[in-house]
Each structure stands twice: as structure tokens, then as C-alpha cells.
């Protein structure tokens, strides 16, 4: 029982640190903070990672992965998060990529994988529907065969970054027979196809991240179906498991915690600062303790998978505890910002004249962060699943 890094691991860490410090530079930061930061900034960052060969640590080496050990992946993830470097946009690299290399045809692999690695295609995910949120399998978007094409009609909702996307991967209903999980197929759809409309959803963080995507008789070649017809649920489930890694967000929460500590030390309060307030310090400490534990819950899970025993029962807690911890941090940051937490300043306005420079960021993160316990399987559904599969209830 130990957490000692080998000499190789330590050397790897140095390499990672050097790369990140050099490549995540001021130019990139400026690009990310610009008006089109999510798209142009992220694409630039992912291309730098690609050049280094590090853009897809989760992929098998043959498809362009890194061949890293779990410890190496953990080191990379930790160093990334500590620097506040955003994770790659997940839809291509983390989500559809693995589905394609696992279940796709040779043609599909050849066509899509290199473009994903090079960030030439921007992907989005078409799962949720207005009537099917946590109950994903209740989806109704229909795909009917017409010659060597499907005709797709229906609507997807909560589609992150659909406004930037070249492609969308969708679960669609190709049969009404059997259980609702049966009769679902997995399609790759070109976003420029006639009949697709993207409507923005304005969210409580006042940003435009989410969309509704409508399909009105959209024609999709049969060749764009992954695997067999009516087996799409199986592929999607495999993907969901893949998505689980690093879902705890430990690195990002550690960074947020350290920001809060810094801000609380700067915030004057009586003769001292807010960090001196025993109640504030106590709230911060209580969260830090949970986070210290979660870091090892994640490591236990990785280590167990690494020796071929699967991620273990505790891995079912990674999303639950990870999101709860993050939301507690968001709330604490808001409380620290106090009445400045409410300031809704437009990008480019000067903070200095108004209040705490972090107030508005704290608010946006708090607001958008409410989604963490709702999307991707709400925490209620996570608890149901854990009760059933882990506790046997």
C-alpha cells in the first residue's frame, strides 16, 4: 500500500510541467478570454496538445493515444487542473471518439478519428430530449429508413456548443418495438444537413452554452450509423462508462479551493481578513477534508482498474461527491464575494472601478455549476443506480 511515484513517474511529471508552462502561454490565455474564446482558444490549445501527441490520453495507442499508465494520466490531469488549464472539449475526444474506435466501421475510423485528433471537426452530443432527461431511454426523435438514408425528425435539448458544431452524434429511435432501450440507434449527423435548426437556450449564468437542435426530415446516410441498427443504447452505455474517468473534478476543485483561500486572505474584515473568521475557515476546512478524501477515492478507483479489478464500488461516488464538493465551493466563493457576487458586468468592462475582481466569475461558475448535479445523469439517478448496483437494494 503506497502512493510513491517511481523515478520514471517523477521524470514524466517534470516533462508535463515543462510542456504546460511553455505551451499554455499568454497568447493562448488572451485567445481563450476573447469573445470567441471557447471555440478558437480551445481549438488552438487542443492543436498544441495534438502536436505533442497528448491530446487523447484515453485512446489506445494505435488510434493516436499516449499509452500512458494510469499514474501518468493522473499526473497529467493534476498538473493541468492546478494551472487552471481547461480540459479538452469532451464531445469529440472523450465521447464520440471512443465509440467510433470501439464500435465503428473501418471507414468511419478512417474518416472521423484523425479529424477529431486534429480538432478539425467540432462535435456535439444529441442525447437528451425535451421529454427525456434523466430518463434518457424515453427518447422520441425518429429515424425512418428511406433507401440508403435515414430521415430524422425530432428535437434534442441541452446540446452544449451546438452553435459551434460541425457534427452531432445522436441517439434516435429506429423501432417502437420491445423495451424502450431497444429500438435505439446511434447516428453521426453532419450539422450542415438541410433541416437542422439550432436554437440557443439562455441560461441562468447569462451565457450561451446550451441549445435546442431541431431535426426536420434530415437525411442521414446509413453509412453514418455506428454498429447495428437498434443497438445504439449498448454503444451509448459503453460511452457513459468511459465518461466516468476524472468526473470527480478533483483537480479543478483543488484549484477553486486555493483561489478561495487566496481571495479570503485578501478580503479585509475588521482588523484582519475573512480567512481569519473561524466560521469561514471552518467551512473551507470541511470542504477541503472531503476533497482530500475524494482525491483518494479517485486514486483507489484508478489503481483498482490498473490491476485489472475494475474501478470498484467507490467509483460510483465520484460524480456524486465531486459535484457536491464543487457546489459547496461555488457557494462559499459567492458568500466571500458578498454583495459583489451579484455584479453582472459585461466582458471588457473594468472590474477595478466596481468591486472584487472575482465576484462576477464566482457568480457565473455558481450558476452554471448548478447543472453539474442535473446533467449527465442527475445526482438523484446516480443515487438510484448506486443503491441498486452497489448496495443491492
Amino acid at each position, binding site marked *: 500500500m503506497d502512493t510513491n511515484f517511481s523515478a520514471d513517474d517523477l521524470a514524466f511529471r517534470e516533462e508535463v510541467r515543462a510542456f504546460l508552462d511553455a505551451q499554455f502561454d499568454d497568447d493562448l490565455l488572451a485567445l481563450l478570454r476573447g469573445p470567441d474564446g471557447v471555440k478558437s482558444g480551445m481549438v488552438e490549445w487542443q492543436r498544441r496538445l495534438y502536436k505533442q501527441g497528448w491530446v487523447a490520453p484515453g485512446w489506445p495507442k494505435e488510434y493516436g493515444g499516449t499509452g500512458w499508465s494510469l499514474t501518468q494520466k493522473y499526473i497529467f490531469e493534476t498538473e493541468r487542473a492546478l494551472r487552471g488549464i481547461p480540459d479538452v472539449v469532451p464531445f469529440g475526444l472523450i465521447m464520440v471518439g471512443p465509440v467510433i474506435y470501439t464500435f465503428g466501421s473501418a471507414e468511419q475510423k478512417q474518416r472521423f478519428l484523425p479529424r477529431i485528433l486534429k480538432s478539425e471537426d467540432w462535435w456535439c452530443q444529441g442525447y437528451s430530449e425535451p421529454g427525456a432527461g*434523466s430518463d434518457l431511454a*424515453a427518447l422520441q426523435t425518429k429515424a425512418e429508413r428511406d433507401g440508403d438514408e435515414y430521415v430524422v425528425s425530432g428535437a434534442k435539448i*441541452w446540446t452544449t456548443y451546438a452553435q459551434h458544431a460541425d457534427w452531432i452524434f445522436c441517439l434516435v429511435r429506429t423501432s417502437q418495438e420491445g423495451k424502450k432501450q431497444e429500438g435505439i440507434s446511434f447516428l453521426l449527423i453532419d450539422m450542415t444537413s438541410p433541416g437542422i435548426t439550432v436554437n440557443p*437556450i*439562455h441560461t441562468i449564468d447569462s451565457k450561451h452554452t446550451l441549445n435546442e437542435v431541431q431535426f426536420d426530415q434530415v437525411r442521414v446516410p446509413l453509412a453514418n450509423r455506428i454498429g447495428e441498427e437498434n443497438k445504439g443504447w449498448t454503444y451509448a452505455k459503453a460511452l457513459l462508462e468511459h465518461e466516468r474517468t476524472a468526473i470527480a473534478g478533483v483537480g479543478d476543485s483543488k484549484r477553486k479551493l486555493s483561489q478561495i483561500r487566496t481571495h479570503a486572505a485578501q478580503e*479585509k474584515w*475588521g482588523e484582519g481578513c475573512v480567512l481569519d473568521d473561524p466560521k469561514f475557515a471552518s467551512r473551507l476546512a470541511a470542504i477541503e477534508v472531503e476533497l482530500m478524501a475524494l482525491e483518494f477515492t479517485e486514486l483507489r478507483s484508478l489503481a483498482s482498474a490498473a490491476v485489472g479489478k475494475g474501478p470498484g464500488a467507490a467509483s460510483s461516488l465520484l460524480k456524486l461527491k465531486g459535484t457536491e464538493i464543487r457546489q459547496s465551493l461555488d457557494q462559499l466563493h459567492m458568500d466571500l464575494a458578498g454583495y459583489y457576487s451579484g455584479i453582472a458586468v459585461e466582458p471588457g468592462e473594468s472590474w477595478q472601478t466596481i*468591486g472584487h475582481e472575482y465576484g462576477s466569475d464566482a457568480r457565473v461558475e455558481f450558476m452554471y455549476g448548478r447543472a453539474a448535479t*442535473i446533467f449527465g445523469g442527475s445526482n438523484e439517478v446516480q443515487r438510484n443506480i448506486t443503491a441498486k448496483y452497489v448496495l443491492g437494494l
Partner: protein
Amino acid sequence: MNFELSEEQTLLKDSVTRFVSDRYELESRRQYIAEEAGFSADNWRQMAELGWLSVPFSEEHGGFGGGAADLMVVMEEFGKGLVIEPYLATVLLFGGTLAESGNAALQQALIPQIIDGSLHGALAFHERHSRYSFSQIDTRAEKTGSGYRLNGEKTVVLNGLAASKIIVSALDSSGGISLFLVDTDEPALQRTGYSLMDGQQVANIRLNGLALGSEALLGEAGGGADILSRVAVQALVALAAEAQGAMQVLLDTTVEYSKTREQFGVAIGSFQALQHRMVDMFASCEQHRSLLYRTVCSIDEDPSNRDEQDIAKNLHALKIMVGRAGKHIGAEAIQIHGGMGMTDELAVGHYVKRLMMINTTLGDADYHEQQFVELARK
């Protein structure tokens, strides 16, 4: 012992309810916010005509002479509609400070203008490093031959852009807090306006050696902190009543949504785990109401029985619960609404944001808990 509204209060409540249901669709509210002042001048006129702007003022100032219970009735309904007009800022903070400052000439000149809706005011007490304290400020009032000279910057001044007069707190040479009435058209006063997440328009205000006559001093020199604490009594009740209205709407909306939204073939309101959590939301809402009634009753107590220590304790307790119940109900309302709770279209997020701003107005839950503890020690 009696927690029923009087006949007069019931009429008042009905009239505010009607106003809110006529004028406060979410879409209309967006339009009011888009107006230059940040609210509807027409609504404000209507409020004046209906006499609501006079509620807290004494009869000698031409007011209605209402108590805490009357104010509660108005504010709870405002809370249900997320009314954006600056009742708190102009009537309770600005008007309330005038009323508490004992300057008869100013009271006679200005309070009628507040009541008839022609004067907007603001109270500037926050600063960059003041956090929730009235006295931990850096703005200074230097005595001059003919009066005072003010230097400093006040932040997050509610209604600070629409106000034509602002009351400003400043440290005087003796280290005490004094209050000054200033006109916003003074060149030495500079305003930067911005919005809060709940749609309110606020301002930062720089005072660059603003020269004032000695008549600008409100109340005694150094007596400002006392005045502000008295002003806070009504303002805290108003905030809590407004929060009560917002929490009630969130609870009702969430329960209704859970009855209609289906997942896994049944209404989500049939899931026991959600039912128990909605019961806890209900509990927070009702416990808050109880504390609101407790506080209102203690303020409206016969003068012979009025117990200032008891009132202060109730007010701190109430503001603690405003913060905590508001967070609890707000978080659960979004969560149970699921993805829909994240959208700006639904009203849910707007109520949650208003509750968050109410929490930070005049001291958050943690600040008032500290005050509550100190009071208990005495």
C-alpha cells in the same frame, strides 16, 4: 394572540396582489428593467397613487403611519412578483434615514416628494472594504469653514443611478460616522452604473472633494451608525417579507412542476426522495414565515411592552434564516426543475437570484449570526 391580517391589511394585500398579477408577467418585467431608470416610471406613479409609497412614514410627515405588519403585507406580494421598482432604496433606505435623522426641515421638504413619487433617493453605505459593517469605511468628511468636504468611493448603491439625492456615510475627524445629503448633479460626484444579477440598477459613487454646506449633515455629527441601525429595522423586515414571497413562489412552482413532469413513466413528484425534499423546502418556507411573524409582532408591540433587545435578536435571527432558507429553497427549486431550472426563460432562476441578492443586502446570514451571538453574550 392573533396572526390574522386586519381588514385594512387584507385590502392592502389584495390591491398589491392585483398590481402584481396585472403588471408582473416575466416578460413585462424584462421590459421594465430595460427602461432607462432600470424600472417602470409608470409603475412607480401607480404605487404613489395607491398610497403605497406612504406606508412606513408617520402621519405627521403625511404618511400612512403603517407598522411592520403593513410593510410586510406589501413586500411579500412584491416578492411574489419580483417587483423591480426601488421601494427598498427610495422609500425605506433613503426615506427611512430621513425619517430617523430628526432633521425636521428636510423631512418636511423631502418626505412628501417621496410619497407623491416625484423624488428618488438612495443610501450609500457600502464600500470596497466595508463588507457588512456600517462603520468600517474609508470615505472621509473633512470639516471646512462653511461645512464639509467629502472624499471617497461608495459601492453597490441601490438605485444609485435614478436617485437625484443620495445620503452618504462618511468618517468624520473624530472617527465617528456621519450622514450627508448630497445632490447627484454635483460635478464632484461621479457615478458608474451597472446591473446586479437580479436586474437591479446600482452605481458606484466617487466623491472627489465634494463640498457641502453644514445643513447637509443629517442628525448629529457622529450619530450616523445609530441612525443606520434604526433604519435597518424596517429594511430587514421588508427584505424578509419579500424573500417570503419569493420562497413561496419557488416552493409552489416546484411542487406543481413535479406533478406534471414525467420521467420513467411517472410524475417525478411521485418519487419519495423528491417528496421528502419538497417537505423540507416547505419546512424552510414555513419556519421562515414564523420568524417573520415573530419579528413583526415584536416591532409592532405596544410601546409599553416594546423590548429593543428582543427586537434586535429577532431581526438577526430572521436575516440568518432569510439567507439559509433562501439558499436551501433556491438550490432545491433548480435541482428539481432539472434542465428547465437552468434556463432563463423559466422564472425559477430569477427568484433564486433575487433571494441571493437579498441574502447579501444589509448583512448576510453569517454576519447576522455573528451579531446574534454577540447579543446573546450581553
